[in-house]
């Protein structure tokens, strides 16, 4: 099996041994590794132009402001936004979704209204809606999952009514890998006057996402899952919905005038970015986007598909291994359980072989309950992974089975 992968050399962290073995990093759905260009871009920012943005009259202040605003422009182009003012920088997907829940939903959802989410949501796209429903008296309903871990548009059509104000849905499940039909759901939502909030944490890093084509109203995603730094994320909102959203972080940088008892806000998007923004993080995210664009999202997507299909094929052949989620059209991850071995024990055995996977409930407890498992193991891929990485995973899983088969005899 070929180990040739031109991208590996771009990731300094991969050049190391973990527990005496070459590091095989298969936890990209939790956070991806960073190419040197991202690390260097942030390094260079701090070494050469660090200053606060939007206020300094001095030269560095202008350079830092340019760097920050260029990052906004890069994100805007990357996801096909109509206008870069529709891009709000946040700490990550969680903060983005909470901003929509607090700043938009709490203003526009009332008792008797409905919020619809799916059973496959990450806690960050579930708890904010629970809280909105509890505070406003709106009803929270869950779209059911079909046996293969997908949702049906018929169910969506049936459940959405004129009382539905918000549909919130992940574009790609962090557990099942399911890709949801966002464009179609947006159409149904809009026919009923509802808005669609999309959790793009797992999709934006791995596939071409065009917000105008999808016609979603909000899209939330994180920098660190797309080879950018931690601590920077994005909330995209259509200008017409952003105009109806209230700021949630009051303070510096977001005001126009402050009186003793009243204040007015800056224009969109600045009114949503209270406090000194995550400047170096935005610079790092910009570098990550440039890196992705230099390779081509289609190349990354094809690579991910090849790895995922190969992993599904190889893992399916292991006796006693259960794989969750659809067989086809899925994200770059495979969630599974080994019969008779708890996922924690699986992860520990793999770790001794230098393989990093995730074990646990993946911040999706309602989904785990639906699948009737306490926890699962998950391997997730990105462009620096190889078919050989998957072969190593498969061998180590066989070893795990043997070890526990022997140890528990």
């Amino acid at each position, binding site marked *: 099996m070929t180990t040739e992968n031109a991208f590996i050399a771009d990731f300094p962290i991969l050049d190391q041994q973990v527990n005496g073995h070459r590091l095989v990093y298969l936890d990209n759905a939790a956070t991806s590794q960073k190419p040197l260009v991202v690390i260097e871009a942030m390094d260079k920012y701090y070494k050469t132009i660090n200053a606060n943005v939007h206020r300094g009259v001095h030269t560095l202040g202008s350079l830092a402001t340019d760097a920050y605003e260029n990052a906004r422009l890069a994100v805007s182009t990357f996801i096909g936004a109509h206008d870069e003012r529709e891009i709000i920088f946040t700490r990550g997907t969680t903060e983005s979704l909470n901003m929509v829940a607090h700043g938009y939903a709490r203003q526009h959802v009332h008792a008797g209204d409905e919020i619809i989410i799916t059973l496959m949501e990450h806690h960050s796209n579930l708890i904010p809606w629970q809280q909105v429903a509890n505070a406003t008296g709106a009803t929270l309903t869950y779209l059911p999952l079909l046996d293969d871990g997908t949702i049906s548009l018929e169910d969506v059509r049936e459940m959405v009514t004129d009382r539905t104000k918000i549909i919130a849905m992940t574009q790609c499940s962090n557990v099942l890998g399911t890709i949801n039909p966002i464009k179609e759901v947006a159409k149904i939502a809009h026919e009923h006057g509802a808005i669609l909030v999309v959790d793009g944490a797992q999709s934006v890093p791995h596939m071409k996402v065009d917000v105008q084509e999808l016609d979603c109203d909000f899209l939330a995603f994180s920098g660190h899952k797309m080879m950018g730094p931690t601590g920077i994320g994005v909330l995209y909102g259509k200008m017409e919905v952003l105009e109806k959203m209230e700021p949630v972080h009051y303070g510096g940088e977001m005001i126009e005038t402050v009186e003793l008892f009243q204040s007015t806000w800056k224009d969109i998007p600045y009114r949503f970015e209270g406090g000194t923004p995550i400047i170096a993080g935005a610079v790092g995210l910009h570098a990550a986007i440039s890196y992705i664009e230099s390779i081509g999202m289609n190349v990354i997507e094809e690579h991910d598909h090849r790895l995922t299909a190969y992993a599904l094929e190889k893992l399916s052949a292991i006796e006693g291994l259960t794989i969750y989620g659809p067989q086809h059209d899925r994200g770059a991850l495979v969630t599974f359980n080994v019969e008779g071995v*708890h996922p*924690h024990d699986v992860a*520990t*055995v793999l770790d*001794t072989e230098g393989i990093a996977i995730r074990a*646990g*409930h993946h911040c999706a407890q309602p989904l785990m309950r639906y699948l009737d498992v306490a926890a699962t193991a998950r391997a997730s891929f990105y462009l620096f992974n190889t078919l050989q990485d998957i072969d190593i995973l498969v061998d180590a899983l066989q070893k795990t089975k043997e070890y526990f088969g022997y140890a*528990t005899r």
Partner: protein
Amino acid sequence: MQLDELYREVIMDHYMHPRNQGQIEGDALSIDLKNPTCGDEITLQLHVEDGVVQDVRFKGAGCSISMASASMMTEAVRGKSVEEAMKISDEFRKLMKGEEANEELLDDLEALSGVCRFPARIKCATLAWNALDKTVKNSEKGE
């Protein structure tokens, strides 16, 4: 890191054949505890009379380390005074930190010493002991 340092024979034996599993009929102190990061859970029941742990039972779901540790904990504290049980708990926590601990008090629990070299698994091993401590504390508060 050697797997056998973690998964000692005595641990696997407790995992496969847990002791004191089930429920106490009648009066008992009871607690449900979850490890929120991983989903492991335990229900622990203690029947204390005259300051002595007369009976102790657990039910739970989790990995080999958490379930074996629970089983071994019940064996270690059954028949002991609450005070002694708390002493064992303290020593067990030292063991998990890789600190020197009282081998005599710990006895079989020494087998779990390898866990401290797998930092991600320490919370698995301590779940049942946290349940024990909380149950005792709750009962003291109630008195």
